[in-house]
């Protein structure tokens, strides 16, 4: 549709900003890059809101249903007549919603970083990478086909690698960036193989064909077998592995806590609000395929999501680094979103889980970005990030304090803040599908409230710490971003989300389910109350409790030893038991054989060179022997004829 042609400038602006700040930024004043980046994302945000308005309120509906609109789709690489990769823009409720989320959070982070990153070496590089990331992420969500998604999926991976390793002189940052990239790459292998098998079955990469509920892809897919299993289930689980890598689902979550080595605004943008929900987005994008041809895959997804949310929430209660607590909280919340997709059905009220998941993605982006940016403001003020070494900051950082409190209430699911509404829908959807999942999710919600308020009381109340320098509130650019996001976290819950985003495009009337909401709010309040007793004032209760459960605490604190298992696999198995032997084999067996042949050749020629002695008598002798042998042979052959 003509009106959406303007959406096409979004990736162009961002890529131009990346090239400009990347190539010329180092030679100009640092602020030039900062302003360029922020200005470009500002334009992008404006265009995104404009697109969203036009889509949701004017052109998006055909009858009662939101449809997919493709303003652009250009051929990028052709394999054969049916398989080709396009580069294009697909607008539908979820991609438009993601446009809003990404551009908003990215704009806030750009703005915030003008203050936060001021004076850092490589300021231009930082903005260049931010532009690259935003470009890739937006192109990912507006992809028209699975392969375009994969391309930008890899590009967000590399942007994440570059930004985690921003402080590249720090060995821990280098190690963390490497780990993040390799773990997600491993998961992406699953994704890639999934895409390839899927394309073999369905002969297409295009989403419009793949996800059409009455289309050929879904109808043919279910009957194909792969290595004896239903190919569709295998394929969809493989694609989910890719999602699990990006979205840090157990057991591929290990890179996310380490990724906190990056600058805090990066954690807010990439590792809380946008990139890590790419997995959720992709499952939502392929949702009809999952519902109609991969019910088993969807069950796997539901259980992994539930388990991860509980698992990460437990770890979050024991960690001391404020950014790591938030990282585990992110893992746990994404677990909610994934679980919600897993329990969802298709169409009408069955599809509540789908809407809930997208809703939670939306509200979570706001409050989690806010939490990270607040944590950044705290770190900016006192240059510490260990919970043990801080406390009593409410007096020094009033704006940060209030905004952080709003975010905590939102994530804990206290009405009327945004998290309450989305969590209520998730729990309702879970309740309808599976009571075990519902119970686990409810408990996790309680733990969430506990660890968030542990963090809140630990930073802003608890003991009065004497700081070397009096902490001061962050500069205007930073607090502006905090306030805008706080407003978002407070009110976005009132958006009638089901009207816009639903599993089949038909608006879904949603309302608050009191039979679920009341127990959920009570659980959250209990969590907050326990945190209040433990951490409001300095006391020895936390220590007593943790030593009482001793071993269990230790296991949780050490994150269930998952990191150790990984180190064993990488260092122990791959380096020592595969690569080492491969090289030994190569040098000694394969090359040894070659050298051996050369050696034998040498040896033989050494021996036979004496035949060329130059003595005529010897030649005559050899010749005579030869003649005699030939004659005898000839006679022998003739006599046998």
């Amino acid at each position, binding site marked *: 549709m003509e009106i959406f042609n303007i959406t096409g400038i979004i990736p162009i602006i961002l890529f131009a900003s990346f090239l400009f700040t990347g190539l010329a930024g180092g030679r100009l004043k640092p602020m030039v890059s900062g302003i360029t980046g922020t200005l470009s994302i500002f334009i992008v945000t404006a265009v995104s809101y404009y697109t969203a308005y036009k889509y949701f309120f004017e052109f998006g509906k055909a009858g009662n249903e939101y449809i997919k609109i493709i303003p652009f789709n250009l051929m990028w690489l052709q394999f054969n007549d049916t398989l080709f990769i396009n580069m294009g823009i697909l607008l539908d409720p979820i991609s438009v919603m993601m446009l809003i989320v990404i551009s908003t959070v990215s704009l806030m982070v750009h703005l915030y970083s003008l203050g936060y990153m001021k004076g850092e070496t490589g300021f231009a590089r930082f903005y260049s990478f931010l532009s690259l990331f935003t470009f890739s992420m937006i192109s990912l969500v507006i992809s028209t086909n699975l*392969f375009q998604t994969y391309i930008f999926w890899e590009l967000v991976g590399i942007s994440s690698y570059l930004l985690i390793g921003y402080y590249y*002189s720090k060995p821990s940052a280098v190690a963390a960036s*490497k780990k993040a*990239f390799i773990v997600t790459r*491993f998961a992406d292998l699953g994704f*890639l*193989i999934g895409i390839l098998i899927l394309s*073999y079955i369905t002969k297409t990469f295009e989403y419009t064909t793949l996800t059409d509920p009455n289309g050929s892809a879904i109808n043919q897919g279910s009957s194909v077998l792969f290595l004896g299993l239903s190919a569709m289930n295998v394929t969809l689980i493989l694609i989910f592995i890719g999602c699990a890598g990006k979205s840090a689902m157990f057991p591929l979550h290990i890179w996310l806590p380490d990724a906190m080595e990056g600058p805090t605004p990066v954690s807010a943008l990439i590792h809380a609000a946008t990139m890590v929900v790419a997995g959720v987005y992709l499952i939502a994008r392929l949702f009809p395929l999952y519902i109609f041809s991969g019910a088993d895959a969807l069950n796997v997804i539901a259980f992994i999501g539930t388990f991860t949310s509980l698992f990460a929430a437990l770890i979050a209660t024991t960690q001391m680094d404020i950014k790591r607590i938030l990282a585990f909280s992110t893992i746990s919340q994404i677990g909610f979103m994934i679980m919600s997709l897993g329990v969802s059905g298709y169409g009408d009220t069955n599809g509540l889980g789908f809407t809930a998941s997208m809703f939670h993605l939306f509200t979570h982006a706001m409050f989690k970005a806010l939490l990270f940016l607040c944590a950044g403001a705290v770190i900016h003020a006192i240059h510490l990030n260990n919970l043990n070494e801080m406390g009593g900051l409410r007096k020094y950082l009033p704006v940060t304090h209030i905004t952080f409190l709003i975010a905590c209430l939102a994530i804990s699911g206290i009405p009327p803040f945004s998290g309450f509404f989305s969590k209520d829908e998730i729990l309702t959807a879970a309740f309808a599908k599976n009571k075990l999942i519902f119970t686990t999710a409810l408990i996790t919600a309680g733990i969430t409230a506990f660890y968030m308020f542990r963090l809140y009381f630990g930073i802003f109340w608890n003991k009065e710490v004497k700081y070397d320098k009096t902490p001061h509130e962050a500069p205007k650019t930073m607090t502006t971003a905090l306030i805008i996001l706080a407003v978002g976290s407070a009110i976005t819950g009132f958006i009638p989300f089901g009207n816009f985003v639903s599993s089949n495009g038909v608006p879904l009337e949603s309302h608050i389910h009191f039979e679920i909401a009341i127990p959920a709010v009570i659980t959250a309040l209990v969590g907050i109350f326990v945190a209040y007793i433990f951490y409001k004032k300095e006391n020895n209760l936390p220590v007593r409790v943790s030593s009482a459960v001793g071993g269990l605490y230790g296991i949780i604190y050490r994150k269930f030893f998952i990191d150790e298992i990984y180190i064993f696999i990488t260092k122990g198995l791959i*380096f020592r038991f595969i690569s080492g032997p491969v090289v030994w084999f190569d040098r000694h067996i394969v090359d040894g054989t070659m050298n051996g042949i050369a050696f034998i050749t040498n040896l033989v020629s050494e021996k036979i060179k004496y035949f060329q002695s130059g003595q005529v008598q010897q030649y005559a002798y050899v010749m005579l022997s030869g003649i005699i042998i030939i004659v005898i042979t000839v006679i022998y052959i003739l006599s046998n004829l």
Partner: protein
Amino acid sequence: MLIPLLIIPTITIFLILVCRSHKQVKVVSAAGMALQLIYSIYVLIEYLNLRSLGNIEEMLFVQSYQWFESFNIYFTVGLDGISASLAVLTAIVTFSGVLATWGLEYRVKEFFISLIVLSTGVYGFFISLDLFTMFMFYELAVIPMYLLIGIWGSGKKEYSAMKLTLMLMGASAVLLVGIIGLYANSGSGDNLTYNILELAKLNLPLDVQKFLFPLIFVGFGVLGALFPLHTWSPDGHSSAPTAVSMLHAGVLMKMGGYGCLRVAMYLLPEAANELGWIFIVLTTISVVYGAFGAIVQKDLKYINAYSSVSHCGLVLFAILMSNKISLNGSVIQMISHGLMTALFFALIGMIYERTHTRDINLMGGLMKTIPFLSVSYMIAGFASLGLPGLSGFVAEMTIFVGAFQYSDTFHRTATIIACASIVITAVYILRVVGKLLLGPVENKDYLTFRDAFWNERAVAVILIIAIAGIGIAPLWLSDMITNSLNPIILKLRSF
């Protein structure tokens, strides 16, 4: 049209002979190779022009001169999309190789002459349509390699030069048997021919094909680092001077892939179908084995040599998958690998000139001191691990999509194993990047390093533009190659 591709280097060589100073030699070589680059791009454009005008002949610009009457040996040249793109690749790599050797002071004249003789051999190889001429050019490219490594190399250079030359000579002996076998079976009496286009029209009996196919595939495969005959490559690369590593990994190894495609697959399709599985097993091993081998190496050149085993293994793997998509992928992979490995070896040479070591455990933090070279190295690394937007991604994805067109368990398993190499590649690339470029500066002397000189910048920029160009806009290249593959596919599907 094509003869100047051989005449320009020859004239350059004569001009070098009359040069008086080192400076003159370098300027003349660079000018000659720049002209060669421009001319080959012009040839490519003319080629595309003719195609867009609807010329559908298999080979364009065909010229033929009788050379040796009694054996029907002709000097026949011709060009299709595959050889055109490989000729441009050769021109780019040779030109940047000359620029990368700007600092050479020892026996300059002889070095550049050998280098240009080598590249002439490569051009001749890619444009030949007569098997005998092709073989001659192959030898012309391999022999200067011995001198280049033996004289200007480093480390245990005599051993490496000898090993490389002997293994490649051994391979060419096998190859020669195969080529003469083709010739002997090409007709009767006076009608015997070495011409590829004529040979392609024949339908050789299966048992003859089955005898010749392994000879030719192995003969070319050794040059393409086919496991287990790849061991010349790590030693050869590590001893060779920069420009020679660039040319060797960049274009010489591509002659192996090109030969397998143009001769083994095209002329012996039925045997390729019957015996392909053996080589699929070997190349699948190459792909993974090379990548695992690279993980634990300490020497930068060894890492890239093993990485080349893995990437060139993928070229042969794709050729053996023998459908249009995978063959297309194999040619793109040849070009892509040629460019990125040339960039790698050029940068390794530049880094070595500064640090005087290639051991990654002894280096660190180069990003702080020589950012231009480090960023270029990182881009080469990203291309190697298949980052979208750079050429490696296009090549690998085309290969994998092609290989997935088979649904039987054997092909699937091999493909999935080969796919796994993208993870292992990421491991060794990021390991090198982490140790070499990032982290704290290991040595105070590093702070005094000068970042890239003009010639070094030029090398990196030329190669990066080519890599990113293919990565961002691959469609024209892929289409050109796909169209040229039609005759080969027809042969492979004809029985």
